[in-house]
């Protein structure tokens, strides 16, 4: 691994949304448009700064800076390596679109929403750029707290209950992670950094201890990553949150948990130790169960966002499955799926938000004929839904193909069945939506049966969805373009398997 290049840019990227937050707070109440602009500018700035590091990252550089030692031997330290950069790029990109989208979507108490959104952006970037697991934990916990107001933003009873449920899951999970970190630090050798490929070893600690540490990490991050016994908050939080927040939840915040598990497996344990301790077994089993169960439960949901949420539960476990396969193609597929799913699910939630705003319809069964009144939205939705099923020429296919070949490469071809069942199930729960929207007559005949392209919805909400839908195809076709997921993920894999 290359030496770290001292650089202010990671810090700048983290601070920029914070600056926009300050501006939002300090500007007087009447400048609504200006506030929206500042909010978008903040996330755009963060994205720009992250993007500016791309050439260096592709050259194999690592940027970083130590901020402040928070307790002895442990400091808040930012580092941008290929994996962190990859996650940072995905999240800032989705965040730009979500800020644009929210400026059209959020009509009530928008300052609070924008403020916490900017805060979440900062903290998540901190997660992506953390040099040690402690820094990761600090930003992760702050992000948990800052995302709570996003979930309950609607202030309905259901939203409040969902928010409380979220905290009930997330705060004990944070304590479990802290427990893992403490064991790791005080009994596992004292190196918390995430820069090398495995800092723990059997020399410093017993097998039992290392297994306990891993399970604590896995369980703690697994709450955010929605692994099956711990996924209870996900299907409640998504429908309750406003659409941009659900898009971010599914697109990035769930991934922060998965990303944490990737970091733990790859950088803390290292694949060798991971294999040696047989830790992949619980991970593969739980990921497979989650994939199947998430899809099965999605089938039964009538509420569109709830259905999408269960779909996310299943999809995030693809990432974990890929990592646990420990074969180059599997890891590549898992890491690439992180971005792919963010694109697809972000778009799906944006579309569901447009449908809700425009027609007031939450449930799939009510959506007959929506495709006519909202044609562009529903086309975007259909593209992404097809991609979720794994249709060729979309990003969904790439992930599934790589994961399938990874399973073969890892000599576990049985897992292909899991992937196939999941694809089949997702066809079962996505196709009816498309069918209802385009081919079912609305019950009241007053709605016209011709496509109405004009005045569909405000451009601020439509364009983010369109951009994502286009990207789902573009990234799925031109896979290896630099800055697309493949280039960065393959860098990570190259380091891992040489």
């Amino acid at each position, binding site marked *: 691994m290359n030496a770290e290049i001292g650089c202010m840019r990671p810090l700048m990227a983290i601070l920029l949304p914070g600056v926009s937050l300050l501006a939002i707070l300090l500007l007087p109440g009447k400048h609504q448009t200006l506030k929206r602009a500042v909010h978008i500018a903040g996330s755009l700035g963060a994205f720009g700064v992250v993007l500016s590091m791309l050439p260096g990252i592709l050259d194999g550089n690592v940027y970083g800076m130590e901020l402040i030692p928070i307790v002895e031997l442990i400091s808040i330290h930012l580092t941008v390596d290929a994996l962190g950069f990859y996650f940072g790029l995905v999240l800032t990109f989705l965040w730009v679109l979500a800020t644009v989208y929210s400026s059209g979507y959020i009509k009530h108490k928008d300052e609070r929403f924008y403020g916490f959104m900017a805060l979440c952006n900062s903290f998540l970037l901190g997660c992506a750029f953390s040099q040690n697991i402690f820094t990761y934990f600090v930003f992760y916990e702050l992000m948990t707290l800052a995302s709570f*107001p996003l979930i309950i933003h609607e202030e309905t009873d259901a939203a409040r209950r969902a928010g409380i449920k979220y905290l009930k899951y997330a705060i004990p999970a944070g304590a479990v992670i802290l427990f893992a970190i403490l064991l790791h630090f005080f009994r596992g050798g004292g190196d918390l950094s995430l820069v090398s490929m495995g800092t723990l070893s059997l020399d410093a600690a017993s097998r039992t201890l290392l297994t306990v540490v891993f399970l604590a990490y896995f369980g703690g991050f697994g709450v955010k990553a929605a692994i099956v016994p711990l996924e209870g908050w996900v299907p409640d939080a998504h429908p309750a949150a406003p659409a941009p927040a659900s898009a971010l939840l599914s697109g990035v915040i769930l991934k922060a948990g998965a990303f944490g598990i990737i970091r733990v497996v790859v950088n803390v344990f290292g694949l060798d130790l991971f294999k040696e301790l047989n830790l992949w077994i619980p991970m593969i089993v739980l990921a497979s169960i989650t994939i199947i169960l998430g899809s099965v439960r999605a089938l039964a949901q009538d509420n569109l966002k709830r259905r999408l949420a269960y779909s996310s539960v299943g999809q995030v476990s693809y990432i974990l499955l890929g990592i646990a396969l420990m074969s180059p193609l599997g890891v590549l597929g898992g890491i690439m799926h992180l971005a792919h799913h963010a694109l697809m699910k972000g778009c799906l939630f944006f579309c569901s938000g447009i449908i809700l705003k425009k027609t007031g319809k939450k449930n799939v069964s009510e959506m007959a004929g929506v495709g006519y009144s909202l044609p562009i939205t529903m086309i975007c939705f259909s593209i992404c839904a097809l991609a979720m099923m794994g249709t060729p020429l979309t990003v969904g296919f790439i992930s599934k193909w790589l994961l399938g070949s990874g399973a073969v490469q890892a000599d576990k071809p049985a897992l292909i069945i899991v992937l196939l069942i999941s694809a089949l199930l997702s066809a079962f729960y996505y196709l009816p939506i498309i069918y209802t929207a385009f081919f079912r007559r609305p019950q009241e005949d007053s709605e016209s049966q011709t496509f109405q392209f004009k005045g569909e919805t405000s451009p601020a909400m439509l364009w983010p969805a369109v951009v994502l839908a286009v990207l789902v195809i573009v990234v799925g076709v031109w896979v290896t373009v630099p800055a697309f997921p493949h280039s960065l993920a393959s860098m990570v894999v190259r380091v891992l398997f040489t």
Partner: protein
Amino acid sequence: MEAYQHFAIYAIVTPLFVAVLIPIIALWKKNWAMPLAGLALSLSFVLSVLLVPKVRAAGYLSYHLGSWEPPFGIEIRIDFLGVLMMVLISSICLIVAIYSLRYLAPVRPKEGKTFFFFGEEMEAGKRPIYYSLYLVLAASMLGFVATGDIFNMFVFFELMAICSYALVAIPGTGLPIRAAIKYMLMAVPAAIVVLLGIGLLYSVTGSLNMLDIAGRIADSAYGQVIVVSYVILIVGFAVKAAVFPLHVWLPDAHSKAPSPISALLSGLIVKMGIFGMIRVTYSVYGAYFASDLAWIVNALSWVAAAAIIYGAIMAIRQSDLKIMIAYSTVMNIGYIMLGFGLADVTALVGGAYHIVGHALAKACFFLCAGSIISRSGYLKIDDLKGAARKMPLTCAAFALASLSIVGIPPTAGFVGKWYLVWGSFSTGNFLLGAVVIAGSIMAAVYCFRVVYYMFFLPPADGAWQQVAGEAPASMLAPTWLLAAGALALGIFSSWIVPFLREAAESLMLLN
């Protein structure tokens, strides 16, 4: 003798002197009380801060009162922990004194209602007495941490106690008086017991100077008497520190006292009990510490764990804001006791850091509660629904302080707990470490419930409509200063911890 050596005694005596002056001046100028008190306390603060580098350079600062040589004369002996406590005491006393100004004498808002603390007609007469007692309290706390003479320590301890009883009861209405009597019924016997312990110690060592006693204890033949005197002293201080089974007075006194006094009680006065334990254990009984007293201290760590769990459960169950905060203090005292009871340098650092961090955050809690009470009159947590709509800044300060109480990473509360867990892991007490973490979760339950009510729930019908709005600046600024301090101490802990570690090592080295 250089000038700075007099700083310590000036820092202690100035508030005492001004305390005498205030009632006299108040005969003519009633409104001078607060500025005078503020001046005296800021002088103490400046002097304490100036002492820090001196104490650090020399390890300790020794001053002989009236130039009588110790062990015969009274010695002021400040080590690093002592000077840190002096800075903490003088700064928090100053901040809370500023807060008291408008709490005691609210300016009537143009619209809405206001709550006069003493009742409108009485307040002008009582305010000078309040500040006078307040200054004596501050001076006695400063003296308590600075002195090197165990009997002098007792005198300051009693002075502090008397002032705190009076200040709890100062509203003069039924409940505060009841609370003060309950407080006295526990604390006065405790003080008698402390005196008895000192007497026993004197009877076998023949000295009152702590350093001298520590030397004489080492080769004393009266081992059993020394152990008994230690237990008696610890029990006496434990009542004052409200350590779990002896905490009964605390929730009443903290919740019924005027809010600035609650802030001092929770932030500083209970810490004095703990400081007394630490001082006695390490500076006086150092020689016996490792052998005959280890089991007592070890038992204290389990008492502390019980305090954490008990305090947290009780805090969760409360419906009154100030009683909830008071039980949270019982819990946090458990944390500090744990740092002391583990008898490990790292854990002691954690305990000492928690003293500072908790003092800031908890004082901020009580000041926020005071602002809310003086603006709206609401005491119940249920009534706080929607409070942020009228008092956003106060509620935000409360939220920031609750991060520290819970122990979310870049706050002072986290740093303290981190070292506590480190200490318990390195001494092999995994269960105690788990209790620390579990306590954090329970703290999250009771803190975030209030924050959630304030920010995310709509007010009940008609509630908060009469409220004039945000507290005045002279109440907001102290609140925010404390909250920001709790945050800053978390971020910049690496500047303070090495000093604390040195101080803890030098304390433990006396063994």
